[in-house]
């Protein structure tokens, strides 16, 4: 079977991998690059556990072909914390107990950060609609929404302080 050679930027670093033409970006991240933070819940675009940011827009990496990433920028859950310094979204997920099994969490965190990067002051309704493509079987969503609202407040404060 033929393999495509792909060069792409992942979390700011140039990365290269070989993939089969039908392989998804999710599988390439996990199996070729060993970045197993992005999860496969469904493989069909329904659960959002595989959410990554591709050229500035969040997408389901299970519905992107790895070959499409050639020359593009991919941001994954692995790039959200700065070293051991958690991003406010991550910190607030911990403080609000917004996770139980944790399988959905990488997708929720990437999606929540993508929202706050675009809209630092979302309403609860906006948060809920934005996260409609992320499914959680454990938490009942309420704690997740509260964590995102808290993170938004903290980020706004950090911005005014800076």
């Amino acid at each position: 079977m033929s393999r495509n050679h792909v060069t792409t930027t992942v979390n700011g670093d140039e990365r290269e991998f070989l993939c089969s033409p039908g392989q998804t970006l999710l599988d390439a991240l996990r199996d070729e690059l060993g970045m197993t933070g992005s999860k496969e819940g469904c493989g069909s675009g329904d659960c959002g556990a595989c959410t990554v940011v591709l050229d500035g827009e969040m997408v389901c990496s299970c519905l992107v072909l790895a070959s499409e990433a050639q020359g593009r920028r991919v941001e994954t859950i692995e790039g959200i914390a700065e070293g051991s310094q958690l991003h406010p979204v991550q910190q607030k997920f911990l403080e609000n107990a917004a996770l139980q099994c944790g399988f959905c969490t990488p997708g929720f965190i990437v999606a929540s950060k993508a929202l706050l990067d675009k809209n630092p002051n979302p309403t609860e309704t906006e948060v809920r609609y934005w996260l409609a493509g992320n499914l959680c079987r454990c938490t009942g969503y309420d704690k997740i929404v509260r964590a995102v609202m808290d993170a938004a407040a903290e980020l706004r404060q950090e911005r005014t302080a800076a």
Partner: protein
Amino acid sequence: MPDLAYHAPDTIKQATDLLAANKGSRPLAGGTDLIVQMQSGRVAPVAIVDLKRIASLKEIREEAGYFAIGAAVPCTSLKNNKALVAEWPGVVEAANLIGSVQVRNRATMSGNLCNASPAADSVPALVAAGATAIVTGASGEREVPVEQIPTAPGKTSLADGEFVSEIRIPRQQKGGSDAYLRSIPRTEMDIAVVGAAASIVLDASGTCTSARIAVGAVAPTVLLVEDASKALVGSKLDDAAVAKAMAAVSAACNPIDDKRGTVAYRKAMAGVLAKRVIQIARERAGGN
């Protein structure tokens, strides 16, 4: 599984050459249908021709007579074009009911059309708007009303090697607007049980001079209900005219019975949604 090839051409010419040279190849737009279908084994193309590296297909052009929406424009980008949102709010809303933000950042209206699902959300709105598709192939282009692209669930009128390069939506007329609504069991992330779109033009006296009503998920393809137009044009969209249009919509439906809705429910709901979209389009058009 036969060897699959992935191509990412830079020009329309390269894309049509690749599609023509590889029988059994498929254009790839957002992949939100195609990749799901490939994963489940429902389709097994020999080659994928990714349209997203063709610069001209990623643009929305505002021409004097129409908006041209390139085949690689994702649904979320439609919201950034102010003129389009002002003139065709219903089309933009319909496209932005599809899936989740993650899905809409990839999904295109051309893909929604060419996937040929009877429940495709943007298609009734495009049909009501009088949109056309530019079909491009090795021998050139042809312009086709969007309602003639899907022919049956999963089937289109496109010949081998042809693809939709852009969708054209006429510039809105003075006193005109549109709306789309769908009925789903949830508030997000579900397939329409019924969808209805209206595009209405009113003159200065509030008389309806043009009306196009289209419904989805109630027949093998999206329906343009001409009898509903007849009931509305020339009226002031009074209750009697709207009731006639509702009856025409219900009568035109030929739905399936499934876990999402019975035949009777879908027919009745199609009429109800038609009434609501007529009302919204009329308010947006400046009527009351």
